[in-house]
């Protein structure tokens, strides 16, 4: 594990604090560390319309989105010296005093019964230049989506990275015990709003995986006490059984072109191996042929190789194999347990489950310099999934006996637990960017 001090030399706070322990292992920061997060101000939006207050709190959604990304530290409303809604009322001195880098103002104007205009502007406090200004139409029903879109635009303008606030996450929940046990496959916004049940079952559901066009989810269902892989279309709810071979069918993942699934098959002899399933022809081609457990396949973003978990060297480690077949090449060498690899969409890193001194934690392996960075601090952390901009990771952890979800910035510096929901939540997967 690389010393964080060496990686992040530009942070003076860290240098001052750890000056006497330059080579000590730095544990990854827990929530609320003020590291690389830029201080910004999002001023409550103005409102012009029929009702006493706006139908939706857009600035609150923008604030929470920017905060959750781990790259911004929005200041509290109570500290603001003025609350302008237009440029003409903006006094930059009042913001320079508060030491914010950027200020965002806006307003909602009602122009019809259910027709609104949402406008926002972001200014650089030091140069006083407008960074972005935009106006969008909205209805009451689309306000939330408009807020996420505004957050995306502000985020991208300020960081150069595409925002992911309009994307979705899928996850599995488990509730009840014994005969009342119920599993649900759910899709929601990244902040947990707009939960939508995709599938419900009294038998376990596992390993959801998004298609590249975000229209389908593959998953494993244990209906009828056997493991079967389905692909379900979200809009219609229709699903196809794509793999129900004798024995284990598991760990589906879509190829970047959406035409194939990498899956795990066990057969009658129960020896788990990696296969590629062509969704059009329904033909399986076998990729690994080893008596070890080979499972948890995932595609590299260039579509040319597959990473997977194998215990062929004794304990689980991550391996890589060309899609055309060949020898599997070992990828992880640190520690006795590395499993469940997931590539970042930019192809540069692999998130995985790593056993760190008795605790199962999320590790991020840099494929270039081979550094392994531990980005979580639980005991049973699992199922990491990158955001489509490669800048955040969502994963499952424990809060007491319950499973909950956390998001961490890809550099491991800012972590946020997601709002708790009923039951035990596991296996989060981040959707791709939506394709309009």
């Amino acid at each position, binding site marked *: 594990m690389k010393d964080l001090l060496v990686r992040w030399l530009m942070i003076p706070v860290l240098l001052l604090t750890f000056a006497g322990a330059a080579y000590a292992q730095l544990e990854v920061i827990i929530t609320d560390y003020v590291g690389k997060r830029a201080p910004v101000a999002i001023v409550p939006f103005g409102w012009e319309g029929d009702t006493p207050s706006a139908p939706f709190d857009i600035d609150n959604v923008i604030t929470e989105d920017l905060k959750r990304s781990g790259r911004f530290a929005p200041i509290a409303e109570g500290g603001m010296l003025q609350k302008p809604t237009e440029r003409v009322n903006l006094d930059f001195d009042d913001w320079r005093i508060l030491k914010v880098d950027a200020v965002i103002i806006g307003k909602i104007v009602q122009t019809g019964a259910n027709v609104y205009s949402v406008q926002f502007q972001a200014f650089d406090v030091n140069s006083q230049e407008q960074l972005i200004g935009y106006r969008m139409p909205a209805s009451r029903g689309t306000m939330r989506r408009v807020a996420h879109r505004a957050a995306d635009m502000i985020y991208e303008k300020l960081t150069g990275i595409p925002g992911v606030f309009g994307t979705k996450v899928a996850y599995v929940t488990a509730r009840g015990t014994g005969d009342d046990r119920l599993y649900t496959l759910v899709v929601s916004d990244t902040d947990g709003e707009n939960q939508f049940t995709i599938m419900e079952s009294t038998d*376990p559901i596992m390993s959801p995986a998004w298609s590249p066009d975000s229209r389908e989810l593959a998953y494993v269902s244990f209906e009828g006490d056997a493991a079967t892989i389905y692909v379900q279309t979200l809009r219609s709810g229709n699903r196809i059984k794509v793999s129900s071979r004798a024995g284990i069918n598991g760990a589906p993942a879509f190829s970047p072109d959406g035409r194939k699934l990498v899956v795990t098959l066990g057969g009658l002899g129960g020896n788990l191996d990696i296969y590629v399933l062509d969704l059009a022809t329904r033909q399986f081609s076998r990729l690994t042929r080893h008596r070890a*457990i080979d499972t948890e396949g995932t595609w590299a973003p260039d579509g040319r190789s597959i990473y997977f978990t194998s215990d062929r060297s004794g304990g689980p480690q991550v391996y890589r194999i060309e899609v055309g077949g060949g020898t599997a090449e070992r990828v992880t060498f640190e520690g006795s347990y590395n*499993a469940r690899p997931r590539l970042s969409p930019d192809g540069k890193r692999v998130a995985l489950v790593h056993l760190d001194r008795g605790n*199962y934690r999320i590790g991020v392996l840099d494929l270039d310099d081979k550094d392994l960075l531990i980005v979580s601090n639980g005991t049973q952390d699992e199922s990491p999934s990158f955001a489509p901009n490669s800048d955040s990771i969502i994963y499952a952890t424990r809060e007491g006996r319950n499973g909950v979800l956390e998001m961490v910035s890809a550099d491991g510096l800012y972590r946020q637990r997601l709002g708790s929901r009923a039951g035990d939540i596991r296996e989060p997967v981040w959707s791709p960017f939506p394709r309009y």
Partner: protein
Amino acid sequence: MKFSRLIALGLVALLAAGCGGNTMPDPGTDDGTMMDDGDMADTDGFEDGGLGDGEFFDEFDDSDELTMVIYFDFDQSTLRADYADLLQQHASNLANDSRSQIRLEGHADERGSREYNIGLGEQRSQAVRSLLLIQGASAGQISTVSFGEERAAAFGSDEESYELNRRVEIKYVN
């Protein structure tokens, strides 16, 4: 794990699973209560006329109540030697009735990655299956499935719960 505790656990699992056919009959009463003292007075072989605490008793041969759960050590799918006799009894059941079918359900404790744990559970099912085949069962009579960590028997995050979860359950399916 002590064999007596194993049997007790197996019996608990058996009762909990609600297996049909081999429930414990209670002579003389309809409401399912255990023996009361009145019945004990007529029974041979009991010193005090009463049962000890926590002991199950019925008039049938205990070996009809086969243990249905096999336990494993951490990260292992090797069968412990003391299961050989038990599995021989199951294998004989199958060998003696060609219509009999069982499903071996493999499980793992919660630690680590879910799909990898499916693999561990399946290895355990296969270990039991292999021995049953050697002992006289036919391949067509045995199916296997693995639930990995998805169907825990015990819900704590401690060694005791982990031990109870590393198991194969034997289910007669017809």
